């Protein structure tokens, strides 16, 4: 250590609490993990003011680019920057290889599951998954039984939520097979980090993620109906008030495809067209960021103003491809989630590479009484909610909240699951009090599936910036970090 540098170091007061949590950066309270050493010494040299200055560079970059999201409930239309934490998360190559193999296995099995439940339903007849759970799921789309999507692929884009437990094991928390969002933050965070810390970045051998849009457009080309060699591809957005609108426009721009709203499309004779200044133009593939429910008012919610009347029939006729396919939500239901290890075993005859978080089903009377007895220790989730809504974090809850959930559980057990409260791994984050604080994180890698499964090495690391909080969702005070997957 240099003697003349007497200024206190930022990490001097950082407390990893490795006896209670898995800290991504510190193996013990005093030793830094090998792959974090360079980053540690670089950040340790900086003063809070220097870090704050770099944070400002990044925030201005985000604000001017319009990289904002909208919070529901609060003031209508208030835009915020998705909080960005300046210290990146590093994943060594050998760990990433496990994640990559585990996700490939999982997505392959889930896709086989979807094909099965929309065709022969063997897995239900073999009673590996209870038929009533699948057929009774609100995301099961009876209308699609027997429909063959191109390449037999249902889940072209997945954003799997992965966490690490106290021992550092990677576990799958949620599958997100419908319209997962956040990939634009993954890409923009990388841009921001390269701006703010170019020298540090070049010290690490970080695997690139910038080809994600090209890989995505390749998948969309692969699933195009056969009638056109140069398929016309569009991205369907709910509109500018959707909190992920920035992402929709960003991806459309990166892929060089049209961004359309429902009112831009029209169906005639089971073919889909866009309305242009020169008349109607045929559409072959739609990357839709609109949920099933809103896609077609003739088939699903009739009050939808975001959808296109007749789209579903055009899809069933094979004249247009949708990514993701219709009805994929049946496999990311949180109840079905608990069966995924069995699903992997059933279709692939393999043990899951990435384990699940242990899950109790309120629909099982045994599990239900256990859940009710342990509400203060468990996390209870509604089966079909997302975005961190409809959830009870037992250890952080009040008696009134627990009573409320107990009533809900008894009333509608099918709709709830419970999981032990996992002490999510922590990572230093530069918090508001100008110091490093250990905050809980997760990881959402993005999996693409066309002719084969392809995972861009990286993902969105979300961080619960509220001290002690376990909820990382942007709608609940979460932020994000850049994620550096190393070559080795």
């Amino acid at each position, binding site marked *: 250590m240099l003697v003349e540098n007497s200024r206190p170091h930022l990490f001097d007061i950082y407390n990893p609490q490795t006896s209670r949590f898995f800290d991504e950066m510190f193996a013990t309270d005093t030793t830094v993990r090998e792959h974090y050493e360079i980053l540690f010494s670089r950040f340790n040299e900086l003063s809070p003011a220097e870090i704050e200055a770099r944070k400002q560079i990044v925030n201005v970059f985000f604000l001017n680019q*319009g990289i904002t999201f909208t919070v529901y409930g609060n003031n209508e239309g208030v835009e915020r920057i998705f909080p960005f934490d300046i210290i990146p998360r590093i994943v060594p190559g050998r760990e990433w290889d496990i994640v990559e193999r585990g996700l490939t296995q999982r997505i392959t099995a889930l896709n086989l599951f979807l094909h099965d439940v929309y065709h022969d339903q063997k897995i239900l007849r073999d009673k590996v998954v209870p038929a009533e759970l699948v057929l009774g799921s609100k995301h099961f789309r009876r209308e699609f039984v027997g429909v063959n999507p191109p390449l037999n692929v249902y889940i072209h884009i997945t954003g799997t939520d992965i966490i690490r437990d106290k021992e550092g094991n990677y576990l799958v928390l949620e599958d997100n097979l419908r*319209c997962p969002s956040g990939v634009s933050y993954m890409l923009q965070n990388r841009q921001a980090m390269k701006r703010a810390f170019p020298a540090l970045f070049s010290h690490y051998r970080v695997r690139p993620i910038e080809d994600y849009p090209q890989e995505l457009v390749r998948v969309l080309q692969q699933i195009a109906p056969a009638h056109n060699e140069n398929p016309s591809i569009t991205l369907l957005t709910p509109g500018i008030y*959707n909190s992920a609108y920035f992402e929709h426009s960003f991806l459309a721009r990166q892929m060089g495809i049209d961004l359309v709203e429902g009112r831009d499309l029209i169906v005639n004779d089971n073919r889909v067209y866009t309305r242009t*200044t020169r008349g109607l133009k045929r559409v072959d593939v739609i990357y839709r960021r609109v949920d099933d429910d*809103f896609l077609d008012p003739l088939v699903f919610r009739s009050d939808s*103003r975001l959808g296109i009347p007749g789209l579903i029939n055009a899809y069933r006729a094979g004249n247009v491809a949708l990514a993701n396919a219709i009805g994929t939500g049946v496999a990311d239901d949180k109840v079905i989630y608990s069966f995924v290890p069995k699903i992997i075993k059933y279709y692939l005859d393999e043990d899951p590479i990435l384990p699940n978080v242990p899950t109790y089903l309120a629909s099982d009377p045994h599990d239900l009484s256990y859940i009710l007895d342990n509400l203060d220790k468990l996390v209870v989730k509604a089966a079909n909610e997302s975005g961190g809504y409809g959830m009870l974090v037992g250890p952080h809850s009040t008696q009134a909240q627990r009573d409320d959930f107990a009533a809900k559980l008894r009333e509608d057990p099918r709709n709830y699951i419970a999981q032990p409260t996992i002490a999510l791994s922590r990572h230093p984050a530069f918090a508001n009090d100008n110091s490093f604080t250990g905050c809980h994180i997760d990881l959402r890698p993005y999996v693409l599936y066309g002719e084969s499964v392809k995972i861009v090495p990286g993902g969105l690391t979300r961080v619960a910036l509220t001290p002690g909080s376990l909820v990382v969702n942007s709608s609940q005070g979460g932020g994000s970090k850049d994620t550096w997957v190393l070559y080795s």
Partner: protein
Amino acid sequence: MLSRVAESMFWMSRYIERAENTARFLDVNFHLLLDLDKITDVDSRSYWEPLIMVTDDRDRFLSLHNEFTAAAVSDFLVFNRNNPNSIFSCIALARENARSIIETIASEMWEQINRLYHFLNTADHDILQTDPYNFYQVIKNGSHLFQGITDATFSRGVAWDFVQAGRYLERADNTSRLVDVKYHLLANSSTKDEVDPVDNIQWMAVLKSCSALEAFRKVYLSRIEPETVMQYLVLDQYFPRSIYFCVQMLQEALWHISGSRQREFATNADRLVGKLEAELNYTTIEDIYQQGLHSWLEELQKKLARIGDQVYESYFSYHTFSDGEDVALGPQRQTLSPGRVSRAVWSQSDSSQQQQQQ
């Protein structure tokens, strides 16, 4: 290109131009009052009221304020969120439109609109009294920077032509309103024979608000007379803010979009703009005076509005297979009147459905 995208291009451009013109009116008025030493409220009322007349918002203004004071008028025209023509509203609407086509425009264009919006959104309203010069300068420069960025980064395709069409249609309309109001005010106060130095300053102010003073002097030297000013702002062929120039550029953009040429027209918009261009080309300032400047300008504004209407019919109104429910899904538009045309982007009921995310 998508009809909706084309429409947003067109309106984004119009709203920016409208904001810039409002900033020009206000800036010049402020300077004029300094020159005339009529900065006190009592004296200056008759100088502020015309600004409200320019924008056709008299009724709306009077529903909010009793008197045409400097503070009330400038706040109404700059920051008032209930005034759809205030600079803030225009920039916010330009931004909404830009947001809905963010993947089509160059990212630098979006960043510029966004920066301007955040500047206005966080600006201290007192700045209108404490530092109006710099404030209006920021707005004008913001608009110029946007146009420059567009010029330097945006492909010369159909989208570009819609941006041009929107800008020049709006500018022609704005210049005609400015001329109308000022002429109305000034022509009544002076007799032809003697040149009142106060009038001279006022006519200079009119030219300044169009950034036309220096260019005007090169043509007419020091002869600042109502006729020459009118001649210059209405009929000059080369000055980029004159009505005739704007109509020429509008014609060029519309013909580019449709592929029309001289003596041919593909759409009704092309026909109307061609007709207007020819009319202006063969009109003298004497012809205009003969009809009466005010009624001539009012007619011009109606013609411009009809062109805008036909642009909508030809390119933005949604193509449909049957005249069924689709028509109802089009964007809401105000019916045309001599007042200003605006475009509503989204209704709140739509916005609630758009909020779903995994």
